[in-house]
């Protein structure tokens, strides 16, 4: 059974758990981030991280070094560390400004696996790779620019701490080398290439019909790249091998994560997490984590798409041809748990190669924790086509 928490009435822009999942850093579509602590079945706000001047677009919490990085539309990122406060002695989160040197909003931020660097995707057609310079005691950023032609929407790190995948509004998913001379040792050769100076392109992929790439993810081994595009498809790319496109007749997915080497969980405008499975031979959709019995809406579910089947048109047509008046307010409620787009899906429990639970947050202000094992088949819609 998925655990559902109604944490806010406003959309949740970003969420990140700490290492033992007892605390949650969230942004409620505002300039401040909140730290919520779990108390039984509730999440109570313990601290507010207020430093940004504009909406915080993305948060990431490094599990080992316990640092939080927040990125915002104000073109800055802050790294927060827990230190004892000067006057009171309490442990508080203290921010350190990171000058990204971008001239547009930051959209997405992720810590690297070793937590010594982080990547910030931005609307400035660049990705800022930030590392700590101990000589000057501050964070320096290096920009990955070529050949990005539009806003970068999502980034994901390869397990070797050097390669970075980026999905962009120029409809391409790319793999870059983010090798920083002072921080990284020379990485071993991977399927993506060897001897990779900073800003080398190791791969560039597009989906079947094109479309903004909303989310990218490396598999646990790092040898495969998956990305979700706005043409309602998921593409799985094997470097030097085939690229499998799974096209769906439903709404686009905007966030994805790998549960294991052969399973991907993704979610988006359909308000439910979907599970995909496959290998180099091919990929297909195997079902949803939300079988519709948890929600309390009416039959206006994921099966009905199109403007003639839902909404005002259907209400009046039913009233006219079938004599059915609207059944109260239940036909505005979806029968999925999330009542609005899921914007962020992150691993919650399990080891890095075998994720057992994922957490989702969305525009409806809910946090839901799903069990990946309970997959139900999708009913009421066409089977997914795979090429």
């Amino acid at each position, binding site marked *: 059974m998925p655990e559902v928490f109604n944490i806010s009435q406003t959309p949740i822009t970003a969420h990140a758990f700490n290492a033992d999942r007892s605390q949650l850093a969230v942004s409620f579509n505002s300039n401040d981030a909140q730290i919520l602590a779990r108390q039984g079945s509730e999440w109570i706000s313990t601290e507010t991280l207020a430093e940004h001047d504009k909406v915080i677009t993305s948060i990431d919490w490094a599990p080992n070094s316990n640092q939080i990085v927040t990125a915002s539309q104000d073109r800055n990122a802050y790294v927060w560390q827990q230190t004892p406060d000067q006057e009171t002695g309490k442990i508080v989160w203290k921010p350190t400004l990171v*000058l990204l*040197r971008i001239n547009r909003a930051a959209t997405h931020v992720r810590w690297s696996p070793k937590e010594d660097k982080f990547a910030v995707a931005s609307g400035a057609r660049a990705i800022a790779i930030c590392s700590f*310079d101990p*000589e*000057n*005691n*501050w964070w*320096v*950023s*290096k920009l990955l620019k070529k050949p990005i032609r539009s806003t970068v929407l999502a980034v994901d790190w390869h397990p070797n701490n050097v390669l970075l995948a980026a999905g962009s509004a120029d409809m391409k998913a790319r793999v870059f080398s983010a090798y920083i*001379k*002072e921080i990284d040792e020379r990485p071993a050769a991977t399927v993506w290439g060897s001897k990779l100076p900073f800003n080398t392109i190791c791969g560039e992929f597009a989906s079947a019909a094109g479309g903004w790439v909303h989310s990218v993810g490396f598999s646990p081994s790092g040898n495969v790249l998956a990305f979700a595009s706005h043409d309602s498809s998921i593409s799985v790319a094997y470097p030097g091998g085939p690229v499998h496109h799974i096209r769906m007749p439903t709404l686009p997915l905007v966030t994805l994560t790998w549960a294991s080497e052969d399973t991907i969980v993704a979610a988006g405008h359909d308000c439910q997490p979907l599970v995909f499975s496959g290998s180099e031979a091919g990929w297909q959709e195997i079902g949803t984590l939300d079988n519709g019995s948890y929600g309390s809406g009416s039959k206006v579910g994921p099966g009905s798409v199109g403007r003639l089947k839902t909404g005002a048109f259907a209400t009046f047509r039913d009233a006219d041809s079938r004599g059915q008046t609207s059944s109260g307010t239940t036909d505005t409620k979806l029968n999925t748990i999330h009542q609005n787009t899921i914007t962020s899906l992150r691993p919650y429990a399990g080891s890095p190669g075998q994720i057992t639970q994922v957490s989702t947050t969305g525009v409806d202000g809910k946090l839901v924790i799903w069990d990946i094992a309970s997959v139900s088949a999708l009913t009421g819609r066409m089977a997914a086509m795979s090429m």
Partner: protein
Amino acid sequence: MSHTVDIPQSIKDSLRKFRFARRNEGSAAIVIKINKQKLIMEEVEQFDNISIEELAEELPENSPRYVVLSHALVHPDGRTSFPLVLINWAPPSSEIGLLTLHASALLNFQTTADVSKVIEIREGPEGLTSDVVNSYLLGK
């Protein structure tokens, strides 16, 4: 005149020695940094017979430095001379306080080192190439 950063006598001596050392081949450089805590200049290292591109690799990407370069310049009429030129190495990702301190102490350092030609490299390693140095020295 009060100075923000002091130049110790050892640095002045190193600079004089560097200036008068006989040059036979290649370019030589001496790299000086500012110690922000003590507000003095310190010598980082000296290079002999190094190319400009190698020097660009050696210099830090996130910290400002003063580099006094004795460059092997080949004139269009075939002569080789070894003029001294000061490179103000100031990459944009350096810490702001240090960058400002570096800029304020530049004039003082320039008069102490007694070098008339100054090249500003503000873009990092891409901006320091032999072409840039040669065209500056030949153009002057």
